[in-house]
């Protein structure tokens, strides 16, 4: 099974090698800059690998971003859990209990996924203020749960479409109702659906910035806002923003590297492909 070395394969592999270098460059740059002593960071020598590794930037950045990381963790876990559970229930109805007009309702749901969120920002801000939820994490969680409904319902609807309807029919003949079919048949089969949806929601909510900056006060800022403030400061040397970027990226990168298959499935499901 040895492949012949042809002009085509040389071309293929060399093109791929160039592309790999280009795609990895930002990660390389972030890592070496984070590992340099602040005094060694100069623009002309930005590409050089540091002679001695300085890990203290990470602990310093962690110290500064810790409150934001804690906020993001609470926010992401709560909002992901709530929106996936609701999405699962919605997906179950949209795929197995269609009612007249359910396709229209579903399409109207999907629309919510594509709107630029600026268009709901002012009323959202006002509503949260009126509900006394402005500034803290509960308001942000509410926003993420509501605007996560379209995508979670979509992923679960497509996932449940694969469960044979005959299974539901026979359970119904045996006398099972709406909720008992869900708890006994559909929910136990849902584990892969939950994995895909939670990973998708986790990365989206972790990475979100607009609501984080508009709807929370300083003490409740998520990690993206904390990082933007850290990186926006003029006096800060570049090692801290780079270390901070790596810290902010690690949770989602870990998910992506170890559970990439599910991540990609969420990605494809998010493109409304059925």
């Amino acid at each position: 099974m040895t492949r012949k070395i042809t002009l085509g394969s040389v071309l293929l592999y060399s093109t791929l090698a160039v592309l790999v270098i280009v795609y990895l460059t930002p990660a390389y740059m972030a890592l070496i800059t984070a590992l340099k002593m602040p005094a060694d960071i100069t623009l002309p020598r930005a590409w050089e690998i540091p002679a001695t590794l300085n890990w203290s930037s990470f602990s310093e950045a962690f110290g500064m971003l810790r409150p934001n990381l804690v906020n993001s963790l609470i926010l992401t876990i709560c909002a992901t859990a709530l929106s996936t559970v609701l999405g699962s229930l919605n997906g179950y109805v949209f795929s197995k209990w269609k009612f007249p007009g359910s396709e229209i309702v579903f399409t109207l749901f999907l629309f919510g996924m594509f709107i630029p969120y600026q268009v709901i920002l002012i009323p959202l801000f006002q509503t949260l203020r009126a509900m006394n939820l402005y500034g803290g994490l509960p308001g942000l969680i509410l926003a993420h749960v509501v605007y996560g409904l379209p995508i979670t319902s979509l992923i679960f609807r497509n996932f449940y479409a694969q469960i044979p309807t005959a299974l539901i029919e026979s359970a119904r003949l045996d006398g099972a109702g709406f909720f008992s079919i869900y708890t006994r048949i559909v929910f136990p089969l849902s584990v892969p659906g939950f994995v895909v949806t939670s990973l998708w929601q986790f990365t989206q909510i972790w990475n979100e910035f607009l609501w984080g900056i508009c709807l929370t006060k300083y003490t409740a800022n998520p990690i993206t806002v904390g990082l933007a403030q850290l990186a926006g400061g003029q006096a800060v040397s570049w090692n801290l923003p780079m270390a901070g970027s790596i810290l902010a990226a690690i949770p989602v990168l870990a998910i992506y590297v170890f559970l990439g298959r599910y991540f990609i499935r969420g990605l494809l499901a998010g493109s409304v492909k059925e």
Partner: protein
Amino acid sequence: MREVSRDKIKAFLALLPSIILIAVFVYGFIGNTVWISMLDWGGVGALAENPTLNFVGVQNYFDLFTGFLDGRFRQDLVNAVYYSVLLLAGAVGIGMFIAILLDRKPRGEDFLRTVFLYPMSLSFIVTGTIWRWLLAPQGGVNIVPTFFGGEKLSFQWLSSKQAVLLFNWQNLLPVMLYVAAFVLIVIGLFCLKGNPPRALKRYLLPGLGLGVAVWLFGDLLPQIYFMEETHGFNLATLGIILATIWQYSGYTMALYLAGFNGISQDLMDAARLDGASDWGYYRHVAIPMLKPITISAVIILSHISLKMFDLIFAMTGPDNAETGHPALNMYLTTFRANEFSKGAAIAIVLFLLAAMFIVPYLVSSYRQRRARS
């Protein structure tokens, strides 16, 4: 039979909370933003407990497009258009190219896919922070050529004041008519295969006629604005476009790769038997078959580029006018300048632009679903 209908009611009731939430938080809020955009809510009194608000109709929109103070919004709008077009071309083109390379099943395909797709998992704030460093004028990308014995570049990636493809906003009417003519011609070309006479009569000839008429008599049209106001493609946005392409080309790659894998081996073999080269196979068989994927990619990327906010915020800061974007402008207008009504009007303009892509897409996918069930 009664049991079934009671279950259907239960199903509907289970969905009801979500329906109410979406109805209020999506549709209600959009309606509310439309309403706010027609008030004069802003300025000093904006944060008062009970501000007095007056209805001003479309005055805010009128100001945005022709007013003296809102030139920045118009530049941002122009930026957003160039930004979307270049992002679409770059991300779809490069993503498709990498997908074709990976479809050759090179060794280490899994590793390669991981490398090309990892930027997608990052936050725009992370991407922006890192790329700002990469595009620093005296370092980063600009000194790469020196490693190969070349000259140092001096391009100001994120702060260049240079603009190309300038046009005069004062001539807004002719510009819009040109756009309309262009759209008619494009539609006509698409219809040409299916129904040539209709395409010719309805789209091509009127489009050409309109274009020629504006070209000949455009100077006679009334000018909206009394001073010349030029807008163009700011070169400072190139850095942002580059970073976005880096982040999203892996996404289009994943879409195309999934599509290529879905094409049956038989079809590929058949194409080979008919004498198609590799290039011919992709050009005439695979890529045309994946038209739905191209359409989804265009929809997703255009809505991402229209709401782009975090990346620009992280790369050039909120106050850099050269790389501005309506989404960022909306944030600044609303939450920094407290001009709520004007911010709402910007949001509605953005929303309408996005809806132009989304609504036809959702309608067609709804029709498909109904046809299937």
